[in-house]
C-alpha cells in the first residue's frame, strides 16, 4: 500500500440545481505536487473547500494517514496541517505583513502580543524558502506577487504540511510565476505535499507529479504527468479535442472604425497622466491588440474610450462620429460594445436574473418595452435565444440568478450580450481572464468571427500567447504610451516582452493612410 497523506473518498457535494462534486476520490501522496485540473465550474474549488472545511460534504469521507478525520471548519483543517492560498487572498489590507501572517495564530504572554519571536520566525522562514517580503509593509501597498508570498508564509508559519494553492498564477507576471514554481519545488524537497488547482496546462507539465482531472463535477482520471501530454490532458478536461491554434480567414481590411487622436487621461492614483497622448486607429476586419503589463494605463484608456471616465485631452471618433464627450448609452448606439475587465464589478448585476442581465443595455429598446413597461415575454424569448446560440449554461436557464453561475458561463453571457448587439467596434478587455482552455477557445473563435464578418475588434490583453495568436496588429503600451507597433507574424514573443518591460521603445509618428 502506498503512503497517502490525504485521501478524499467518494466526496459528493450538491448545490441548488447542480452537483458540484459527484463521488470524487482524490489521493494525495506525501511529498508530491498534485495538480487538480478542470474547467470553470468543474468543481475544483468546491472540492478544495471541502478539504479546507469551508463546506461540509453531503457524502464521503476524508482520511489523513489512513485515519478518518472530520473537518468542521478551517481551524480543524489547520490543526491537521492543511493550509490554503485562496484565489482571492484573505488578507487584511490595512495591516502589516507581519500582522497578517500571525493573525489567528498569535503568541501571547499575559494577554500581550509577542511580536518579536513571531517576527524572527517569519524572517527565518522567508529566508529559508527565498520568499522575499518586507514584514513591516502594509498589505495594500505591496504588489500582488508579494501578497501571495505573504499568504504562503501564513501557511508555513502555521507549520502546515499540506498546501493547497487555488489558481495561484492567475494574477502573476511571467517572472513571478517562474519564482512560484521554484518555491513549490522547494516545498516538495522538504517533504511537503502540494495540491495545485489550475487550468493552465503548461504549468502542470512543468511542475506537477500527478494530475487529477475533473469535468462537470465528476472525476475523470488521475494520471502521471510523465506519461501524458498537453493534448491528452486538455482532451480529458474538456471532453473533446481542443484546437490551440486560432483559425483565421485571410484579412479583408476596410474603412476606419475607431480613430483615437492624442488621447490623454489623468490618473486617479498619482499626479502623472495614466494615458499619455496616444493615437491609433482600428479598421473594420482587423483585431488590434493592445498588449502590456498590468497597470500601464490600459484600464484608464478603456474607461475613457467607453465613457466610464472623463478624458483630459484628445479626440475619439467612432464611425466618423466624434464620441469624445458622448454618454455611454450614445456610444453604444453609435456602435460600440464593451466586454469589461472586471465582470463582477461592471459586466453583470449579480443579483439579477440571467435574462435581465442579457438586456442590460437594451431594456429600453422598443422590442423590450412599451410605454415604459418591460415586456417580460420578449425579454425571456430573447434571453432563451442567446442562451441557446452562445451555449450559456446555468442551473435554471433564463431565470437563474447570475451570482450562482460559474465564472466561465458568466463571461459567456457577457460575450453573448455584447456580440449580439452587432457592434461595429468590440472592445474586449481581458476577455479570457481566469477561464479554462475550452472557454478561451470559444471566446477566441467569437472574436475572430467578428473580425471575419467585417467588424473591428480592439483586444486588450496581458497574456502574450493570446496576443500572438489572435491579433492582426499589436500595439504595446508602456507607462501610458504606445511604445511599439508590430505585425504578429514578424515579431517574437521575446521582442514584445522587451517593449512591454520598457527596455525598448520606438518613436512612433502617426502615419496618415
Amino acid at each position, binding site marked *: 500500500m502506498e503512503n497517502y497523506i490525504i485521501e478524499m473518498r467518494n466526496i*459528493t457535494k*450538491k448545490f*441548488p440545481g447542480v452537483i458540484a462534486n459527484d463521488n470524487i476520490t482524490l489521493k494525495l501522496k506525501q511529498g508530491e505536487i498534485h495538480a487538480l485540473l478542470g474547467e470553470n465550474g468543474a468543481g475544483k474549488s468546491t472540492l478544495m473547500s471541502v478539504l479546507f472545511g469551508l463546506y461540509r460534504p*453531503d*457524502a464521503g469521507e476524508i482520511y489523513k494517514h489512513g485515519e478518518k478525520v472530520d473537518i468542521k471548519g478551517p481551524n480543524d483543517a489547520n490543526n491537521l496541517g492543511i493550509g490554503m492560498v485562496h484565489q482571492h487572498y484573505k488578507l487584511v489590507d490595512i495591516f502589516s505583513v507581519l500582522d497578517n501572517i500571525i493573525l489567528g495564530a498569535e503568541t501571547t504572554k499575559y494577554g500581550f502580543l509577542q511580536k518579536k519571536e513571531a517576527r524572527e520566525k517569519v524572517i527565518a522562514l522567508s529566508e529559508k524558502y527565498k520568499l522575499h517580503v518586507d514584514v513591516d509593509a502594509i498589505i495594500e501597498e505591496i504588489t500582488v506577487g508579494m501578497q501571495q508570498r505573504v499568504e504562503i508564509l501564513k501557511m508555513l508559519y502555521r507549520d502546515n504540511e499540506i498546501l493547497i494553492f487555488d489558481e495561484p498564477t492567475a494574477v502573476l507576471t511571467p517572472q513571478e510565476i517562474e519564482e512560484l514554481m521554484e518555491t513549490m519545488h522547494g516545498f516538495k524537497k522538504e517533504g511537503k505535499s502540494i495540491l495545485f488547482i489550475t487550468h493552465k496546462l503548461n504549468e502542470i507539465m512543468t511542475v506537477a507529479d500527478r494530475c487529477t482531472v475533473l469535468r462537470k463535477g465528476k472525476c475523470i482520471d488521475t494520471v502521471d504527468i510523465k506519461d501524458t501530454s498537453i493534448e491528452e490532458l486538455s482532451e480529458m478536461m474538456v471532453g473533446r479535442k481542443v484546437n490551440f491554434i486560432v483559425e483565421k480567414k485571410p484579412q479583408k481590411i476596410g474603412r476606419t472604425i475607431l480613430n483615437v487622436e492624442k488621447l490623454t487621461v489623468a490618473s486617479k492614483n498619482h499626479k502623472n497622466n495614466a494615458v499619455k497622448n496616444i493615437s491609433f486607429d482600428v479598421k473594420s476586419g482587423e483585431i488590434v491588440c493592445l498588449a502590456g503589463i498590468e497597470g500601464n494605463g490600459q484600464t484608464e484608456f478603456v474607461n475613457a474610450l*467607453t465613457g*466610464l471616465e472623463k478624458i483630459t485631452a484628445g479626440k475619439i471618433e467612432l464611425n466618423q462620429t466624434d464620441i469624445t464627450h458622448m*454618454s*455611454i*448609452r450614445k*456610444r*453604444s448606439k453609435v456602435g460600440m460594445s*464593451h466586454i*469589461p475587465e472586471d465582470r463582477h*464589478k*461592471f*459586466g*453583470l*448585476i*449579480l*443579483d*439579477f436574473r440571467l435574462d*435581465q442581465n442579457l438586456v*442590460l*443595455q437594451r*431594456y*429600453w429598446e422598443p422590442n423590450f*418595452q412599451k410605454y*415604459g*413597461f*418591460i415586456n*417580460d415575454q420578449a425579454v425571456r424569448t430573447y434571453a432563451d435565444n442567446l442562451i441557446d446560440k452562445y451555449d450559456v449554461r446555468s442551473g435554471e436557464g433564463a431565470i437563474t440568478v447570475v451570482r450562482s453561475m460559474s465564472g466561465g458561463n458568466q463571461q459567456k453571457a457577457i460575450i453573448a450580450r455584447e456580440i449580439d448587439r452587432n457592434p461595429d467596434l468590440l472592445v474586449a478587455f481581458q476577455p479570457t481572464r481566469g477561464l479554462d482552455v475550452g472557454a478561451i477557445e470559444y471566446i477566441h473563435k467569437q472574436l475572430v468571427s467578428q473580425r471575419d464578418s467585417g467588424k473591428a475588434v480592439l483586444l486588450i490583453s496581458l497574456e502574450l500567447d493570446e496576443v500572438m495568436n489572435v491579433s492582426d496588429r499589436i500595439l504595446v503600451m508602456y507607462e501610458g504610451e504606445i511604445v511599439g507597433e508590430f505585425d504578429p507574424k514578424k515579431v517574437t514573443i521575446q521582442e514584445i516582452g522587451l517593449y512591454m518591460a520598457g527596455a525598448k521603445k520606438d518613436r512612433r509618428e502617426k502615419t496618415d493612410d
Partner: protein
Amino acid sequence: MIKPSNKVKVFFKNIGHWFKSLIFKVDDKDPKLLVLYRKGATKSVVSSLISIFVGILLGGVILFILAIASGGDISLKAAWEGFRLIFVGVFNTGRDLNGNLTFGFNSTNIGNVLFRATPLILTGLSVAVAFKTGLFNIGAPGQYLMGTAATFIVALSIPTTIVPAWIVWILAFIAGFLAGALWGIIPGIFKAVLNVHEVITCIMTNWIAANIVTSMFDNNKGVFKHLLDPSPTKNLAYLFKTTENGVATSKMGLDVIFPNSQVNGGIIIAILIAIVVYIILNKTTFGYELKACGSNRHAAKYAGINEKRSIILSMAIAGGLAGMSAALYYLSGNTEFYWSTYQSLPANGFNGIPIALLAYNNPVGVIFSGIFMSYLNVAGLQLKNLTPFNEYITDIIIASIVYLSAFSLAFKEILSSKIFRKKSKDLSQEQPQEILVKPKIIAEEEEK
C-alpha cells in the same frame, strides 16, 4: 358524447390529480408544495413568520417574568391573559360577567388596525423603495413631518365654501406628497452630486423639518398660528382637525363593515399605492434602472443608466411616499396634530424601517407587515386596558422582531440546508415511490 356523470367523474379526478401533485411526484415533476417551498419568496415569508413568532413568544416570556418579579402584585393568570391578548388581542371583546376574557369579531379593533396601518404601509414603502436603489432612507420622519405641515396648511386654508371639499382633499394630498418629495430629494441630490452619505443628510433634514414645523405652528409667533385650535379644552398648541374645514377622507363603506372604528378609505388608497409601487419596481424600465443602481451602480453606469438621476428620483419617490403617509393619516379627520421639537421625531416615520425590513423590501409584503405592526399596536392598547401590564410590552416585541428579522437570512439558510440534506437522504427512498405512482397514472389515462 360524454355523459354528464362522466364529466363530473373527470372533474373530480382532475381535482384529485391536482391535490396529489401537491404532495407526490407526478409526471416527473416535483411535488408542487416542494416547488413552492423551494422558491426564494416562500422562504422569505416563512423566515419572516418565524421572526414574528419568536418575537411574540419572547414578549410572552417577558410578561411572565414581570408577573413573577412583581411578587404577587400581578398574578400568573394576568400574565397568561396578557400573552393571549398579544396573539389575538384584536379579536377580544372585553370580559364576561365572571371576569374571563371573551373573544369574537371586534369591529372597533379591526377597523382601528386598518386605520393605523395606513401611514405605516406608506412609510414602509418609502424605506423599501430607497432600499431597492441601495439607499437607506432614515429621513422618513422628516419627510413625514413636512408632508403633515403641507397637508394641514392646504386642507385648512382653502375655504370649502368656495372650493368643493373633495378638490381641497386632493390638493392637500398632493401638497403632502410634494412636500415629502422635496424633503426626500435634498439627501438624494447631496448623494448623487457630492457623494455625501444619505444617512447623514437624512438625519440633518429630519431635525431641520422638526424645527421648521415647530416654528410654523408656534402658538406665539408661528406663521400659521391662525390654524391652531383656540378652544380652552386644548391647553397645548393643537391644530384644528381637517374636519374643521369639512375635509376628510371618504369612508368608502368601510365604516359599515367595521362600525365604531376610525377606519376610512385611506387603507384602500395605501394598498393601491403599494401595488402601483410594486408594478413600477418590477414591471417598468424605470424600476429596472432603480434596482440596477441599487444592486450594482458600477454595472448600471456601464450599461448607460444615469445613476445620478436614478438616485435623485428614488429619494424623491421615497420622500413623496412618506409625505402621502402623513397626508392620509391626518386627512382622515379624526387625528389631531400637535408638534414641538422637544418631542422626538414622529414614530410613524421611523417605523417604516422595521416594516420594510420585515417585508424584505417587497412592496406587497409591506402591506402585510404594515398591518401587522398596527395590529401589535392595537394589541398593546388591549393589554393596557384589560391587564395590569402597559402597552410598552408590544414595543419590546416589535424591537425583538426587528432584531430577529436581521437573523431571517440565517433562518432562510437553515430552511434551505435542511430541505437539501433531507432530500439527499431521501433520494434512495423516493425513487421506488415514483415508480409506484407512475403505473397508476397510466392506468387512469387508459380508463379515459
